[in-house]
């Protein structure tokens, strides 16, 4: 029996998971169009490789990862690119981003794929494959997996596969583990091989007995891989919390987990890694739970780019739905409209209605009851952070570890005053980032300005030095110039005057050419006059 550790706090919101596990993962028909954003991952945006009108095959690379941290984007099915342009994306801001609109032709014509053996493939090549296959963390963080597989200065001893899925309503990982346990385990093998880890721990919350059973069966012949049932406690599926529960290691904010000898991957990511490495299938689809205010809550294997309204229609969306939530009810993002498309980060779409999610009662003042501190998994003092964020005392908020907050929402969940605490932390964080950027810009501007002043000063000095040197030289040269040389110059000048030479190319001009020259001369004079007057002002 493995020893499990505790993390501080946590809450038990009603799970509502039974709704969407009654039927297996379904594959919906092709949507009428796919809107594929070029920036679905952490890092820089992928560079578009296609233009409107291009025909693309299923799995074709349409967005090339830029230098550094980035990931690839692919055509989720075959068809024609109708447009490359700005469209509203699934983001809380409701702002547009660069997307490719793909009209499927219904043929599902694949690009050329090859089968590979993950056991013999060089490790560097696996990372390259993953980068070009657009594999990112599917738990919601969408961090490029190839970067996570690079390892750190320290030896990574333990891989944690995260199948905890602690958020209410969401069952996509549960269903994936029930139905595709073998491929997840094979993905775990690849991760373990690339990072050279000793063991793989698969953490699953104990409210998913079927998934635990299937995963146990799948890794029964692997001595280095263990399935561990962890207590159901939100946010036990947060990477930091799951690592803590399984290994006892606490990874602080701003610390790479590899430096602590552990790395965490979502089970769906492990599955996608296997598919990409063994079958060269890029990340074209993911399992999405569609639940909430729908007739038939279910999990779907959804193509990236599928519009949310079409997806919800397949699950039988009810007419009194007011809006949709991407993700769970604790950390999810309200979608700006239902035409935005499913992206790699989208594990769940909840159709929301006022009956399911009644609007928050008005917020009362904080009474410092510290229920938030009791449940905070990061052991913060949310009531203090709230105080500082509210009064925009950002320095103090940082001192009180604002950036250790994982925005799990447990504090807001228990607040008897119904204060939107997490919202205050998000506000404070983005303000601090903006200020940091302003500060950097100001420092850069100061540096450039100071350099410019220095340069002007230096040029002035150089000019003065040059002038001085010239004068000195002239002074020194004067006595050397002999009288006969002077006489020669004078003679030459006199000859020139007599002859009154004119340039050859100005004789025999057509009237048109003469007019042009006059025009140019006039403009030049004009410009000179203007420049002089400007310089004078």
């Amino acid at each position, binding site marked *: 029996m493995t020893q499990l550790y505790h993390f501080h706090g946590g809450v038990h919101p009603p799970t509502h998971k039974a709704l969407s596990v009654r039927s297996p993962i379904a594959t919906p028909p092709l949507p009428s169009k796919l809107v594929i954003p070029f920036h679905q991952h952490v890092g820089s945006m992928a560079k578009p490789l296609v233009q409107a009108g291009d025909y693309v095959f299923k799995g074709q690379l349409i967005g090339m990862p830029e230098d550094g941290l980035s990931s690839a984007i692919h055509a989720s099915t075959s068809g024609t690119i109708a447009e490359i342009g700005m469209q509203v994306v699934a983001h809380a801001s409701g702002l547009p981003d660069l997307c490719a609109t793909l009209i499927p032709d219904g043929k599902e014509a694949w690009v050329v794929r090859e089968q590979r053996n993950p056991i013999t493939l060089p490790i560097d090549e696996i990372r390259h494959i993953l980068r070009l296959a657009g594999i990112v963390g599917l738990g919601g963080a969408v961090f490029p997996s190839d970067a996570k597989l690079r390892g750190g200065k320290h030896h990574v001893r333990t891989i944690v596969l995260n199948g905890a899925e602690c958020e209410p309503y969401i069952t996509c990982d549960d269903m994936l583990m029930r139905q595709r346990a073998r491929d997840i385990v094979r993905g775990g093998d690849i991760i373990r091989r690339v990072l050279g880890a000793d063991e793989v721990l698969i953490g699953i919350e104990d409210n998913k007995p079927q998934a635990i059973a299937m995963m146990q069966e799948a890794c029964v012949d692997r001595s280095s891989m263990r399935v561990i049932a962890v207590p159901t406690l939100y946010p036990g599926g947060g990477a930091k919390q799951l690592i803590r529960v399984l290994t006892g290691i606490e990874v602080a904010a701003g610390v790479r987990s590899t430096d602590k000898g552990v790395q965490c991957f979502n089970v769906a990511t492990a599955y996608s890694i296997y598919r990409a490495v063994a079958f060269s299938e890029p990340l074209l689809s993911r399992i999405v739970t569609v639940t909430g205010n729908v007739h038939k809550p279910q999990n779907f294997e959804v193509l990236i780019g599928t519009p949310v309204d079409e997806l919800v229609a397949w699950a039988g969306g009810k007419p009194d739905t007011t809006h949709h939530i991407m993700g769970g009810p604790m950390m999810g993002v309200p979608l700006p409209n239902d035409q935005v498309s499913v992206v790699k980060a989208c594990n769940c779409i909840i159709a929301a209605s006022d009956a399911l999610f009644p609007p*928050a009662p008005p917020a009362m003042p904080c009474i410092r009851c510290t229920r938030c501190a009791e449940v905070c998994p990061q052991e913060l003092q949310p009531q203090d952070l709230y105080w500082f964020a509210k009064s925009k005392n950002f320095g103090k908020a940082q001192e009180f570890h604002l950036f250790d907050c994982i925005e799990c929402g447990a504090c*807001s969940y228990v607040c008897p005053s119904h204060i939107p605490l997490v919202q205050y932390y998000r506000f404070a964080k983005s303000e601090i980032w903006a200020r940091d950027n302003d500060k950097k810009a100001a420092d850069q501007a100061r540096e450039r300005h100071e350099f410019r002043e220095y340069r002007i000063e230096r040029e002035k000095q150089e000019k003065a030095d040059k002038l001085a040197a010239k004068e000195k030289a002239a002074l020194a040269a004067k006595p050397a110039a002999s009288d006969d040389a002077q006489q020669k110059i004078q003679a030459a000048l006199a000859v020139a005057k007599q002859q009154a030479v004119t340039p050859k190319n100005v004789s025999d001009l057509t009237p048109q050419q003469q007019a042009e020259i006059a025009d140019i001369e006039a403009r030049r004079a004009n410009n000179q006059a203007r420049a002089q007057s400007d310089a004078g002002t």
Partner: protein
Amino acid sequence: MFYSPFIRKPISVSQIMLRVMLALIPAIGAYLYYFGPIILVSLTLASITAVATEAAMLKLRNRPVAPFLQDNSALLTAWLIALSIPALAPWWLVVVGTAFAIVIAKQLYGGLGNNPFNPAMIAYAVLIISFPTHMTHWLTPAMLIHADLGFAGQLAYMFGNVLPQNMTLDAFTMATPLDTLKTQLHLGTAISSIFGQPIFGGLAGQGSEMVAVGFLVGGVYLWATRIITWHLPVAYLGSLFVIAGIFHLIDPAHYAPPLFHLFSGAAMLGAFFILTDPVTSPTTHKGKLIFAAGAALLTYLIRVFGGFPDGMAFATLLMNICVPLIDLYTQPKVFGKKEQAR
């Protein structure tokens, strides 16, 4: 627009306050049994005053009235005031105390959640400084009473300052056990003989000790329903017990036994209902322990060596001042940064 989390635990400030008021019921019951129904009158009077002044202040401060009145915090303050001053006090004493608590100690500091001092204890402190005689006329418990004034008579005294001709105030009121102890010790009487007097019961004062038990019962209910944590009451009562115990061991003739201190005066009320006011107590666990231990020490010092019969109110207020400092210096280490800080 609303943002995550989209679900909330069904709990509110007003429910919490209501639960705390509910937890006061056992003590009120004991009060009724031992001292008669007059406590209900002062509870009502305090409640009306609190709600009226709160509403008026919210209106003056241009704040929404309805949601803040529904939070029940003013009512709770009113009940605590009524329970901590003599039940048979003149009506204006209750009104002045409650109004001071709500207007000055709470609303002028910014209302719910912003008051640095416990409003009920401010009221108590103001009253005992301004009207010391009125504040020492405590009702004699029913079994010790010589001449019963009757409920109607009590009302007449309370609202009209009228007493029956053949009666004085002393016939049905008395000093508290703590006060008696102090006076008698001053006269040189030994503890053992003081405790032989009829006003003392098994633990502390006759009747009042059972009210204290009522507070204890209510407090355990609050702890069991997770309205309060164990830190404040345990640290307070524990420290008081230890301090009183040490003194008692040193000189049993001059220092009352620790259980007497726990069950007399406002110790039980304070431990479970006053110190635990979240607004005016520290937020960290360590801070709570320090805060409560400090309050216990001050309570004991004021009781035994100070000029006032009970020290709970002043101890609380003095410790309230220290709360920001305590909080600042007891910040717990956050997730993942425990080793690094060492």
